[in-house]
C-alpha cells in the first residue's frame, strides 16, 4: 500500500500548478492513495510474454494519415468564442514573464 505524505502532495501541486486548500489536504491525500492503490493492483497482473500494445490499431497495421492540404477555414471566431478575456484577436492571460 502506497502512502502519500504532504511532500508528495506539494510536488503534485507544483506540477499541476494547483494549490489545495488546507482543509482539503487530508481528503486529497487519501484519494490519491486510493488511486495509486488501484494502479498497484494492476501491476500485480502477470503480463509476461504479452507484447505492449500502444493502440488498438496495431492489430490492423495500417497507417492513418492526413494529406498535407489546407482544409480548415479561418478559425479565429470559434477559437476565441469561449475566451474569458480577449484583445486584438488574442487570448488575454496573466502576464507570464
Amino acid at each position, binding site marked *: 500500500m502506497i502512502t502519500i505524505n504532504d511532500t508528495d502532495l506539494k510536488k503534485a501541486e507544483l506540477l499541476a500548478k494547483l494549490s489545495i486548500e488546507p482543509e482539503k489536504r487530508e481528503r486529497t491525500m487519501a484519494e490519491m492513495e486510493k488511486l495509486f492503490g488501484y494502479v498497484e493492483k494492476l501491476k500485480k497482473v502477470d503480463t509476461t510474454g504479452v507484447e505492449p500494445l500502444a493502440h488498438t490499431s496495431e492489430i490492423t497495421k495500417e497507417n492513418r494519415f492526413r*494529406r498535407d492540404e489546407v482544409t480548415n477555414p479561418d478559425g479565429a471566431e470559434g477559437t*476565441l468564442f469561449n475566451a474569458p478575456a480577449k484583445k486584438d484577436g*488574442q487570448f488575454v*492571460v*496573466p502576464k507570464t514573464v
Partner: protein
Amino acid sequence: MESKNVEKTAPVKGRPKTAECRRYDTVIGLEVHIELSTKTKIFCGCSTKFGALPNTQTCPVCTGMPGSLPVLNKKVVEYAIALGLATNCRINQRTLFDRKNYFYPDNPQDYQISQLYEPICLDGYLEIAQDEGEKRGSSTASENKTGGGTSTVCKKATKTIRIHEMHMEEDAGKLTHDESEGISLVDYNRSGVPLIEIVSEPDMETAEEVIAYLEKLRMICLYLGISDCKLQEGSMRVDVNLSVKEAGSDILGTRTEMKNLNSFKAITRAIAAERERQIALLESGEKVEQETRRWDDTAGASYSMRSKEDSKDYRYFPEPDVMPVVISDAWIEEIKQRQPEFKEEKAARFEREYGIPAYDADILTQSRHLASLFEETATLSGQPKKTANWFMGELFRIIKETGKEPEEFTFSPKHAADLIVAVEEGKINQAGAKEVFAKVVLEDIEPLSYMEQHGLMSLSDEGALQAAIEEVIAENGAIVEEYRSGKDKVFGFLVGQVMKKTKGKADPGKVNELLKRNL
C-alpha cells in the same frame, strides 16, 4: 516562471586564459529544432503560412478543445525519414507519439504531442570538416566511416558528430507581453506547426565545431527543401548543452542548457561566456547547477530560467489519440530514391566535371537552386569556368546588393549562357556585359536583342574600326611619332583614344591588333 536572479557572467580577472585552456575541456551537445515547411500543421488541416492575423489559422485540434482528435500529416513523417536518411540514422519502423505534460499558456492542450520512447530516427551521425590547425590526435576522426567518401576531395580532416535521435513534435503558440497593462496575449497560429528535434551526442568541443555541425545540418535541410532553417526567424532553434571538465578527465561535469540563441554569432558568444562562467564557479570552489539558462545577447550574459525545485518532470506517456506509425522497407526505399544530390557530392562533381576550383564549387553549391542555375548555364554556354566567374563575381554581388534570397533569382539559364558566349566571341565589352548580365539575372531579358537595341554590340567589323583608328592616328601625329621612335608606353593612350571614339563598343583585343598593324 523565470526567476530573475541575475548572475552576470563576469569576465574572470587575474587568471591567465592560456592556463585555463589547458586545464578545462568543453563538452557540447546540441538540441536543434527545425520548423518544417509543410503547408499544414502536424495534426490538423490548418495552414502554417507565416504572418496571418492572430488565431485565424486555428481549429479545435490545435487549440486543444475537448473531443478533438489529431490526425498525422503524412508529409511530416516523410520529411523526418528523409532527414534521418541524410544524417545516417536508422529509421525506427514502428514509431510512436508521447504526451509531454506541462502547463503554460502557449500550450493549449496542457501537453505537447512529442516522441520519447520510440522516436522516428536513431543513431545517426554527421561528419564535419575540421581545420587542419584544430585537428587533434585524440579526436574521433573518421575511422568509422561507412562507405560514402569515394570522392577525390576528401583530403580534409573530418570529425564525426553522432546524432542520438530525432523526433517529430508540435510547436507551441506564441505569447506577447503587454507591459502597460500587465497582461500576456496568446496567438495559437503556430500551435501544431510541425517540428523535428535533432538531438546530438555531446561530441563537440568548440564553437567552431558547433557552427560547422549546424551549417551542415542546415544545408541538408535546405537541399531536402524541408525547412528554411532561419535562426533569426525561429525556423531553426538551437539549445546548447555545455559542461566543462578537467582536461583529460573522463568524468563529465554538470551541464547547463542555454536557450534563446538567435544567430550563429550569439551561439559563439554564449559558448565562450558559459564556458568562462562554469570555470569561474569551479575555480572558486562552487558547483555548477544543472539548469536552463537564457542568453541575453545585448547584455552578453545569461540568466537562470528555472530553479532547481522547478526541475523538469514532464510525466511522459504514450499518446492514445495518435496511432502508431508503421514504416515499411518499401516506403524507406521510395524516399531514398527521391533524395537529392547533397551539397558535398555536388561540389565534388562540379570540380570534377567542370574543372572549377574547389573554392568556387563550395560557394556555388551553397544554394541548391543557384547550383542548378549554374549547372544549366555552364552546360548551355559550354564555358563552365567563365560561368563560374560570372556567378562568383557578378551574381553574388547582385544577390548581396539586393538582399534577395538565392531562390528569388529565376532567370533562364539560356539567357545567361547567350551573354557569356557573346562576351567570349567579343560581341560585347566587359563593361557592357556587366550591365546586360544584371538585366538578365534580375529581369530575365533576352541579352542579344537587348544589346542590339541599346547599341551595346561591339564594333567588330574591321571597316568601322579601321576608320576610327585612322582618325586617331591622324589626330595624334606627335604621339604616333613617339611610338614609332620606340616609346611603347604611349600605345595604351592610342588604344584609349580609339575606345573613346567608338564609345567603348570596340573589342579591345581587336583594337590592339588593328592599331599595331596600322602603326
